[in-house]
């Protein structure tokens, strides 16, 4: 499944007339994992989601959805406009937007009972709207989604006002997923979740999207969220697509501002080779080399992406011996940033993958670092990014 669109129009800010600008979005989004829209606030990311959903209209628009069976459906062009409620889009809004007058259970079932999901029409018009009254197939779907998002049975009879912000957001995501959308739009859906909540929900969402093979667009201003959940990213600036690539490739492009931010990060795709329970570590294979990280709950052979902060990296020209730092990799300097600042960015290549490191300009001189030179790369902390499902 994929989504193809182009939109032209003018973005109006209600408060600041000076911030009006023309937008011109053109993009094709495939179903391979979550695609994130990244950009500062007010650059038109949320507007783009609203345009795709049909909640917002613009005259110069073309929006085509290609289904898995090869069928294409025109959602919008010069002549056609498919109503938002007929597009089978799952839209998770930033504020959750639960229906305050309905119980959590009725909230979750709201979409299930209306979306005529492919072939069957699971309506419950006069019956009480409870999970038990659904057909077996839907019960399984609802149960697995609720379990995956950590929604407890004790919440079901409560009203949204009795839930915390994080709990409300989980319910809002569940309500959207159980309606089995063909396309998932997420507008800052994790902002009310704490770190623990994110750590629980992000891997589930990422796996869900890959398993369902649906395109999923995520708007976020948090690069941590994007690094840990998205496969592809689109950088949006002033209503235009600045770059569209895998997250790993975008992070290490020196011409984009992402690599120059304080938290600049790189992603290394590696494969779980073995677990070492006596040290609570997992050994990962990165080409011919190895990395040890805190033991993760993933199967042997599974691909995971590792997040490494550029400022956490130590570069040395000699192989480190007798160091407490467990991880060191061999790599080659591809590019050194030209700057007069105290610290410079190095773009390194490790086993065919790109890695960013930030060192002082003084060290570059002292160690005589040059493009093409082989170096040793040490790092202490490693964050786990998205667990990637292996292509079957």
């Amino acid at each position, binding site marked *: 499944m994929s989504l193809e669109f182009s939109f032209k129009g003018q973005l109006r800010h209600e408060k600041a007339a000076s911030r009006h600008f023309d937008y011109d979005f053109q993009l094709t989004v495939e179903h391979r994992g979550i695609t994130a829209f990244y950009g500062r606030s007010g650059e038109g990311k949320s507007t783009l989601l609203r345009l795709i959903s049909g909640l917002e209209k613009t005259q110069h628009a073309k929006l085509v959805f290609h289904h898995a069976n090869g069928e294409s459906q025109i959602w919008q062009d010069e002549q056609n406009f498919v109503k938002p*409620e007929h597009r089978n889009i799952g839209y998770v*809004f930033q504020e959750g937007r639960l229906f305050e007058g309905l119980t959590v259970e009725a909230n979750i079932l709201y979409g299930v009972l209306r979306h005529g999901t492919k072939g069957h029409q699971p309506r419950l018009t006069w019956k009480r709207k409870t999970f038990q009254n659904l057909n077996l197939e839907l019960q399984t779907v609802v149960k697995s989604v609720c379990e995956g998002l950590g929604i407890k049975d004790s919440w079901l009879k409560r009203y949204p006002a009795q839930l915390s912000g994080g709990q409300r957001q989980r319910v809002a995501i569940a309500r959207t997923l159980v309606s089995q959308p063909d396309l998932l739009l997420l507008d800052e859906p994790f902002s009310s979740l704490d770190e623990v909540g994110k750590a629980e929900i992000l891997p589930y969402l990422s796996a869900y999207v890959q398993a369902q093979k649906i395109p999923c667009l995520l708007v976020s201003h948090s690069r941590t969220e994007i690094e840990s959940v998205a496969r592809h990213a689109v950088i949006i600036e002033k209503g235009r697509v600045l770059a569209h690539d895998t997250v790993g490739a975008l992070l290490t492009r020196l011409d984009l501002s992402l690599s120059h931010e304080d938290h600049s990060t790189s992603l290394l795709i590696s494969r779980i080779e073995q677990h070492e329970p006596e040290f609570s570590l997992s050994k990962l294979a990165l080409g011919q080399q190895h990395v040890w990280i805190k033991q993760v709950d993933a199967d042997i052979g599974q691909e995971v992406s590792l997040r490494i902060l550029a400022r956490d990296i130590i570069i040395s020209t000699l192989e480190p011996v007798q160091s407490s730092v467990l991880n060191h990799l061999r790599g080659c300097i591809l590019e050194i940033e030209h700057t007069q600042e105290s610290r410079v960015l190095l773009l390194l290549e490790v086993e065919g993958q790109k890695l960013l490191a930030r060192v002082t300009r003084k060290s570059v001189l002292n160690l005589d670092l040059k493009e093409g030179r082989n170096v040793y790369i040490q790092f202490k902390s490693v964050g786990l990014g998205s667990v990637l499902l292996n292509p079957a």
Partner: protein
Amino acid sequence: MFLTPTDVMALTLTLKLALTTAILLILVSTPLAWFLSRWSSPFRPLLESIVALPLVLPPTVLGFYLLVFLAPDSVLGQFWFSLTGFQLAFSFSGLVIASIIYSLPFVVQPLQLAFERIDKQAMECAQMLGASAWQRFTSIVLPTTRHSFLLAAVMGFAHTVGEFGVVLMIGGNIPGETQVLSLVLYDYVELLDYDGAHRLAANLVGFSIVMLVIVYSLNRRTVSLKGTGQPFSARNRESSS
């Protein structure tokens, strides 16, 4: 406090008129109020003024124009006659039409206010969950505005019971057809039958007080239910545990 057969007939007629008017008003006003709450056009104040006109016009002015428009030789009067074989002026149907116009602002305005307060975000959310316009109306709009609907219906009913000038102009005071309570009372006073007038007036005052108590208690409930729906105390308790 015993009512005469004339009084009872007038009372029944008044209640029948008020009930018919209230039901028809809700049916007419719901789409009108919805349109007004969603219409953004420089002409909106004009339409709102036309709806509100019966609030400021002397009822006799309204009654006079209605009499002209509903008269047997008018376009509307002839159309109605060819349709039903009855004339509109001095008939119950004519009274219903007049009452609908006379009480329109009392029903449209509370509904319009309620529709303007509807959470647009919730409506969008329902739409993205596959709810059609009608399903959004029944699942979001009706439950959140049901008190306003009740209030609007009661207002339309009560205001119709209390009308005098319009029915005097257009009704013709025919017992059992157009002679409503307020007209009977007027007749008593004209005939200097103060006992009958007292009897009827006391009943009307009692009835009005009951209606107003209902309206105001409903009004209070709508206000208290209007809250943002996010009681922070409850949420804080939950997140701190």
